[in-house]
């Protein structure tokens, strides 16, 4: 059975010892500050078709980790292997071509779309950059992308300010899908949305995963959301991964004290027993 082809169960993305240190700023007048270690030796594995939830409080380094994997931020140390490719070794030209395989969905649907570009041109841009399809059939591809994320196809002429937050986030997802990636970093994709819209976007992400076999690194500070979408969860605290495992295990039987503290902070609706009906004569009992 052994062959040169990679193992099916081998992780699509393997991160080892990822580190990002922000060097101290020193100036003539400022006192030398200590370096900030934003990400401190993070190890992560994401299998094909899997969602890894990365959870932790604000400022723990989740977003920096996600952006380092995409090399939006240059990591200080560590290795990132994606589908057998050493991502950190890629030169700028190779990196640009490689970006077809990894994409990102941002937290803030207001800031992540250019206010001066229509939805159509925002989605057309990545297709043109990677020369996907003929220029003549790109409008059809744009329409297909809109359909995939559940938006009317005549939205191509709209500007971002004419869309609601949830619709913008769908456009952001469509833009990420445009180049046909295998892996998406979802950086708090629902935390800026209303709760009712959150569920819709989460379901959309789930459906797309099933239809396209996508892998996600799902970053959030809300364990309730992460629990809902993830196969496995990694808990991050002060730049380090303190616990990682299947969702049921991390949620049901947390090992680390920090995870337990985080779980205790999640508001839950108690579902012990059926709710009792309130009727007019209940006061008589």
């Amino acid at each position: 059975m052994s062959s040169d082809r990679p193992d099916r169960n081998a992780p699509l993305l393997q991160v080892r010892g990822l580190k990002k240190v922000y060097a101290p700023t020193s100036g003539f007048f400022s006192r030398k500050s200590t370096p900030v270690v934003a990400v401190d030796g993070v190890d992560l594995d994401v299998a094909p078709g899997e969602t890894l939830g990365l959870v932790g409080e604000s400022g723990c380094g989740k977003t920096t980790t996600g952006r380092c994997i995409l090399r939006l931020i240059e990591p200080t140390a560590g290795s990132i292997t994606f589908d057998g490719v050493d991502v950190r070794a890629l030169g700028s030209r190779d990196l640009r071509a490689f970006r077809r395989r990894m994409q990102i969905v941002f937290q803030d649907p207001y800031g992540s779309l250019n206010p001066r570009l229509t939805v159509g041109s925002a989605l057309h841009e990545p297709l043109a950059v990677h020369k996907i399809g003929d220029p003549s059939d790109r409008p059809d591809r744009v329409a297909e992308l809109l359909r995939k994320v559940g938006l009317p196809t005549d939205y191509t002429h709209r500007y971002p300010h004419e869309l609601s937050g949830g619709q913008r986030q769908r456009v952001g997802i469509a833009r990420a899908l445009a180049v046909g990636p295998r892996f998406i970093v979802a950086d708090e994709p629902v935390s800026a949305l209303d709760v009712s819209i959150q569920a819709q976007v989460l379901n959309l992400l789930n459906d797309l995963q099933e239809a396209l076999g996508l892998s996600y690194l799902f970053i959030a500070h809300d364990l309730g959301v992460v629990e809902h979408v993830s196969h496995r969860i990694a808990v991050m605290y002060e730049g380090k991964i303190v616990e990682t495992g299947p969702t049921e295990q991390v949620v049901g039987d947390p090992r680390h004290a920090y995870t337990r503290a985080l779980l205790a902070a999640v508001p839950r609706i108690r579902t012990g027993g059926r709710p009792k009906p309130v009727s007019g004569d209940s006061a008589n009992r």
Partner: protein
Amino acid sequence: MKTTSTSGAWVAAIRRDRKATFGAVILSIFLLVAIFGPLIAGDPQALVGVPLQPPSSEHWLGTTGQGQDVLRQLVAGTRVSLAIGFAVGLCVVGVGAIVGVAAGFFGRSVDAVLSLLFNVFLVIPGLPLAIVIAAYLPSGPFTLGLVLVATGWAWNARVIRAQTLTQRKRDFVAAAVVAGESNIRIITREILPTMTSLLVAQVISSTVYAIGAQVGLEFLGLGDVSAITWGTNLYWAQNDSALLTEAWWTFAPTGLCVALVGFGLAMLNSGFDEITNPRLQLERAWRSHLLGLGIAPSRSTPVTVGHE
């Protein structure tokens, strides 16, 4: 198709705004004079009569100290002065935009070098430098333009650098990076379009600067004194002791034109500010709406729906 619809929107926006309309009308008149005036007015160099004649039915604006027609010289000067003014205005913003965007976008050592460069240019007092350069270079409109661009670009570069810095941190730029767009494409497609209103405002104010500085330098005799521009008209008026001879008609019309063009451009600029700032636009619309209902409007920001 897209450009016509946006330029159509600009025209409509200018017409809605009273200040901008006023500025646009003044400017259009001057542009028409600059383009067609010299064809009608006749040779400005021709000696047409007795020197220093006051305005009359024959010479509407009188004659100069050399006996040339002041109106003809004014019209001929309009063409050259406006051409230099707008060309310099565009170049100043062009150079400023290239340097500013490069500094803001690439950061690090590129930013350090370019920032040092424009900070040095900012510290050097512009007009004195212009006088020194203009005195050493062979005189002419091209030299003058060069001098004005060299002394005027730095402030624009600084403003655009700051604007680029804020845009570069936006997520849509990160999305463009992840989409694989090249740096040039990110700058031209993503960053510069968010600054159109700023760039337009800069072109207008730089043109005001260019016209004023050009007239000033030429008045001092640092331009080509044989050319006919607003500045040289003033230079010759002063050379012929216009104030001593009380020949006001040799300098007042030119001075008035400089002031009017500057005023028109400034009006257009403040109109653009309201046009391109949705908050100011809403505020005005809301106030007039309230006034229509007989409610005295207070100084407030109107309640808006989901706008950045």
